[in-house]
C-alpha cells in the first residue's frame, strides 16, 4: 500500500509518538486539582517546540484548540469584524470560509485577486485595501494545489496598512520554514496531525500580543474558579479539559523532528521529494497538474487525467494499485472555480517525511500506466 494522503492526515508517525501516547494513558493522573495525565510542564514544553517551528519568543502567545477549525471559529468570532472589510484568498479552506460567511456580524468579504492557480501577486493586494479593511486571510500552502504564497511580502503590505495578517499554516507547518516575525503574522493557525506528525483532535493558534480577540468560548480552566464574569483582557482561550494525549503525542513528534531529523533537513527533504515528483509528473501525457514551474511548492499536488473522472482515478488508484489518494473539492471550494474543477474536483497526492523515493517511483509508473490506456 502506498499512502499519498498525508495532507488529510500524516501516516506513518514517528515510533516515539506511540510510546508517548501509551505513557500518557498509563501514567497515574496524580494531583490535587485537575489530575492531568502528564508529566510536569508538558503543555508548555510542547508550546516551546511549536515556537521553534514558527520563531516566536513568547510561547504564552500560543494556544491549543481541538484543531484548525476551532481555532478559526474562535478567532473570527472574537475579532470584532462587524462592519469591517476583510480580504481572503481563494485558497481558503472551509474552516475559514464558513465561519466568515456564516457570521452573525456584517462582514464585507472580498476575494483577493490571483492568477488561474490561485497565486497572489502581493502587489495586487494594495489596490483592494479600503479604509475599513481590518484583516487579510491567507492560506500559506494550498491544500488543493500545494502552491505556496509569498507571506513575507504579503505581511509587509499588511504591516504597512496596519491590518491583521492571519495565516493558515495547516498544510505547511512542519514541512516549510515559517517565521512569524519576518512575515509580520498577527495570527497563525496550525494543526497537529499533518506535517507535525501528531494525532488528530489538536491544533492551535499563535496570537500576537497586541491583537484584540474577544473570548467567545467559556468554561473551567482551573484558574480563578471563584470568578463567574471573565475579564476579557485575560486571554483564557484554553477552557475545558485539554487534549493531553494529543499534546503528549505532539510534544513527542516535534521533539523527534527538532532533535533527531533537524528542521532544515526536514524542510529540504520534503522539498526535494516534491520537486522530484513534480518533475516526473509534468512530463506525463494526458495528465493535468494544477500548478506549474513558476510556483513554490508544498508537498502536495492536484491533478486530473483526461477522459477520466477524478473519482474514478482515485478509485482505480486504490482498488487496482493500492495507492491511497484523496478526491473531490478538498473542503476548499473557491479555488476550484479558478481551476475549472468545481464540478468534479481533483485527485490530490500528498507526501510526508516518511514517503520514500521507491514509493514515488512506483506511483509515477502507475500514473504512466493509467494515462496510457
Amino acid at each position: 500500500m502506498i499512502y499519498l494522503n498525508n495532507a488529510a492526515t500524516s501516516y506513518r508517525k514517528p515510533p516515539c509518538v506511540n510510546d508517548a501516547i501509551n505513557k500518557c494513558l498509563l501514567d497515574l493522573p496524580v494531583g490535587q486539582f485537575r489530575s492531568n495525565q502528564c508529566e510536569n510542564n508538558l503543555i508548555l514544553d510542547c508550546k516551546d517546540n511549536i515556537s521553534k517551528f514558527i520563531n516566536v519568543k513568547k510561547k504564552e502567545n500560543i494556544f491549543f484548540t481541538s484543531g484548525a477549525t476551532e481555532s478559526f471559529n474562535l478567532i473570527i468570532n472574537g475579532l470584532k469584524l462587524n462592519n469591517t472589510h476583510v480580504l481572503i484568498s481563494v485558497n481558503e479552506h472551509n474552516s475559514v470560509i464558513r465561519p466568515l460567511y456564516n457570521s452573525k456580524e456584517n462582514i464585507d468579504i472580498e476575494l483577493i485577486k490571483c492568477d488561474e492557480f490561485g497565486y497572489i501577486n502581493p502587489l495586487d493586494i494594495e489596490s483592494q485595501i479600503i479604509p475599513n479593511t481590518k484583516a487579510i486571510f491567507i492560506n500559506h500552502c494550498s491544500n488543493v494545489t500545494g502552491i505556496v504564497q509569498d507571506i513575507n511580502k504579503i505581511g509587509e503590505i499588511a504591516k504597512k496598512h496596519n491590518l491583521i495578517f492571519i495565516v493558515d499554516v495547516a498544510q505547511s507547518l512542519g514541512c516549510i520554514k515559517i517565521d512569524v516575525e519576518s512575515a509580520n503574522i498577527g495570527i497563525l493557525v496550525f494543526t497537529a496531525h499533518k506535517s507535525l506528525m501528531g494525532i488528530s483532535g489538536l491544533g492551535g493558534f499563535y496570537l500576537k500580543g497586541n491583537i484584540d480577540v474577544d473570548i467567545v468560548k467559556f468554561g473551567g480552566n482551573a484558574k480563578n474558579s471563584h470568578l463567574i464574569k471573565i475579564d476579557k483582557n485575560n486571554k483564557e482561550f484554553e477552557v475545558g479539559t485539554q487534549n493531553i494525549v494529543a499534546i503528549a503525542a505532539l510534544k513527542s513528534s516535534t521533539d523527534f523532528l527538532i532533535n533527531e531529523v533537524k528542521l532544515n533537513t526536514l524542510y529540504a527533504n520534503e522539498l526535494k521529494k516534491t520537486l522530484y515528483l513534480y518533475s516526473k509528473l509534468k512530463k506525463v501525457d494526458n495528465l493535468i497538474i494544477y500548478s506549474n514551474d513558476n510556483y513554490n511548492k508544498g508537498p502536495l499536488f492536484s491533478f486530473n487525467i483526461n477522459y477520466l473522472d477524478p473519482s474514478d482515478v482515485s478509485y482505480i488508484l486504490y482498488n487496482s494499485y493500492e495507492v491511497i489518494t484523496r478526491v473531490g473539492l478538498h473542503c476548499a471550494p473557491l479555488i476550484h472555480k479558478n481551476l475549472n474543477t468545481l464540478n468534479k474536483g481533483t485527485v490530490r497526492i500528498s507526501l510526508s517525511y516518511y514517503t520514500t523515493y521507491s514509493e514515488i517511483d512506483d506511483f509515477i509508473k502507475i500514473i504512466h500506466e493509467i494515462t496510457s490506456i
Partner: protein
Amino acid sequence: MEIIKVEKSNEICAEINWHSYDIFFDEQMDKKFIFSLKKFGTLMYLSLLKKPFFKVNTNEYLIKGTQYNTKLRVGIFNNNIEYLSFILENILILY
C-alpha cells in the same frame, strides 16, 4: 455468486450529492459478470490496468469496481434508495 452484504460507504461523495454504497459478493467479480452489467447502461471497461476497472454510468446512479475484487460501489444521486433496490434485484440476473 451471491451478495453477502450491502454497506453505506464511509467514503461519502456527498460533496457533490452522490451517496455511495458498497456491495460485497462471495466471490471475485470476473469478466462475464462485469459485462452482464451492460443491462444497466453503457459499460466502460479499462482492461489494461493491473486490475481492470469498470463503470456503468446513468444520470441517476453509477456502478463501478475492479475485476478480481469482491466488492463494487454503487453511487446514487440524491440518495434515491429506489435505484439501489433496483440494482440489488437485478445485478445477478443473466449472470
